[in-house]
């Protein structure tokens, strides 16, 4: 048994033993759980994939004369921000797109530029054009503002992603006879391909499936800088069926994360366009798992072959919210490049980059080993199965005139 405090002492003395979530697999195979748990202090995880419920808020500073953008409009490189805040605070969502984007009018739409790209441009240090309008008040008389802004001049630029790091996710396929365009990419007709999105054995919440060490307040690698877990993410659902190793077989836990955008790097925050679907942000996240006991290490040493997910039809079942599965596959099977569905061999593709996830876990490992990253104690746990917390569908009710 170790405590986070003891591990932090070892970090400060340069004696900490850190391995990635990939390295720990061989280590446990070689030495066994007990011996490995004695030796290893921290396991670093990583993930790098599209995460739509991401965004950033900015305080741009007050102009002369003052303007109250709150209740007005604000666009960054033509991409609309949310302005229902105070005078010069705005929030930009990763999936926002310019008003004149043709969207899916010419199907499938290209969605060339949006919120995710603006965030990447800002992090890259590029100037971004801000256009704002306001209704004007006695204390904030200005009604129009057009200026270039740069991240280095903003008072605050904070990445605040309300749902990231999905703990497991379905494999998407298309049973219809025409191509479809989804957030899991283009799906060829009649089981032409199968797309998934997870770092599998490197993914943070798959390596701590019952949230024994990862909690609210946990310090993390976020977009190349440091951030924190702010809360459970939206749609957090610990109630789904799990294997004996505690790993959910369906989409389950999620994280809300927050961090200083000014510290982050465009290498780990990438705006992407998904044909026929929209714009999003690929986010790099790494979470350290302190090896507090043997069970924590055993969970962290789980391999792709022990992590399962469901194959779901995105042409009909998913859009109609029909709970169904065309089968269960392991991440080892998915990573082999092909799986069998309805007796057909189907090629697989991953939206999440395993190599970048590995790079993130290595980067976090080096920060900890150098003493640049001290672990934090969670201030509260994420809701687990015992909490009763779950994810409900919308209950639509008629609106009476």
């Amino acid at each position: 048994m170790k405590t986070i405090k003891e591990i932090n002492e070892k970090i400060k003395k340069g004696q900490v033993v850190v391995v990635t979530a990939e390295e720990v697999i061989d280590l446990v195979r070689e030495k066994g759980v007990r011996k490995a748990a004695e030796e290893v202090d921290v396991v670093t995880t990583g993930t790098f994939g599209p995460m739509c419920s991401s965004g950033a808020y900015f305080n741009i500073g007050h102009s002369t004369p003052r303007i109250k953008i709150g209740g007005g409009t604000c666009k960054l490189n033509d991409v609309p921000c949310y302005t229902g805040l105070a005078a010069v605070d705005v929030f930009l969502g990763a999936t926002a797109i310019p008003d004149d984007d043709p969207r899916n009018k010419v199907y499938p739409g290209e969605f060339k530029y949006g919120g995710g790209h603006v965030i990447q441009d800002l992090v890259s240090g590029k100037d971004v054009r801000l256009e704002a309008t306001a209704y004007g008040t006695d204390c904030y008389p200005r009604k129009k503002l057009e200026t270039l802004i740069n991240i280095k001049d903003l008072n605050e630029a904070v990445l605040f992603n309300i749902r990231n790091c999905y703990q497991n996710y379905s494999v998407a396929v298309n049973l219809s006879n025409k191509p479809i365009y989804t957030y899991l990419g283009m799906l060829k007709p009649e089981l032409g391909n199968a797309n998934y999105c997870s770092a599998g054995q490197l993914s943070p919440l798959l390596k701590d499936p019952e949230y024994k060490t990862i909690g609210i307040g946990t310090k993390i690698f976020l977009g190349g800088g440091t951030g924190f877990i702010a809360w459970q993410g939206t749609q957090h659902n610990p109630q789904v069926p799990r294997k004996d190793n505690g790993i959910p077989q369906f989409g389950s836990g999620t994280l809300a994360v927050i961090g200083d955008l000014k510290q982050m790097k465009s290498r780990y925050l990438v705006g992407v366009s998904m044909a026929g679907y929209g714009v999003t942000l690929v986010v790099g996240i790494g979470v350290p798992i302190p090896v507090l006991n043997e069970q924590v290490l055993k969970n962290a040493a789980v391999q792709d072959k022990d992590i399962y997910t469901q194959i779901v039809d995105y042409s009909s079942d998913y859009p109609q919210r029909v709970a169904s599965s065309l089968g269960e596959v392991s991440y080892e099977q998915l990573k082999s490049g092909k799986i069998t569905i309805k007796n057909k061999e189907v090629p697989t593709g991953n939206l999440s980059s395993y190599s970048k996830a590995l790079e993130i876990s290595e980067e976090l490992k080096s920060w900890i080993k150098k003493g640049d990253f001290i672990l934090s104690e969670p201030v509260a746990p994420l809701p687990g199965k015992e909490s009763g917390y779950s994810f409900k569908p919308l209950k639509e009710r008629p609106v009476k005139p």
Partner: protein
Amino acid sequence: MRERIEKALDKVRPMLEADGGNVELVEVTPDGVVKLKLKGSCGCCPMSSMTLKMGIEKIIKQEVPEVKEVVAL
């Protein structure tokens, strides 16, 4: 021109290979269109259009400005 494009592709290849993919130059048309074949895991990768446009096309155009467009076959 073909040789310069190959050199540009050599810069991209390590990134593609890291995720089990690769790329093959098939044709360069007289009007500057580069035709590529995405191989390995790139061939069925849902992110390949992003890799092609934001990664490969960007680097080829930087190195060989006469290139107008990069398409995957």
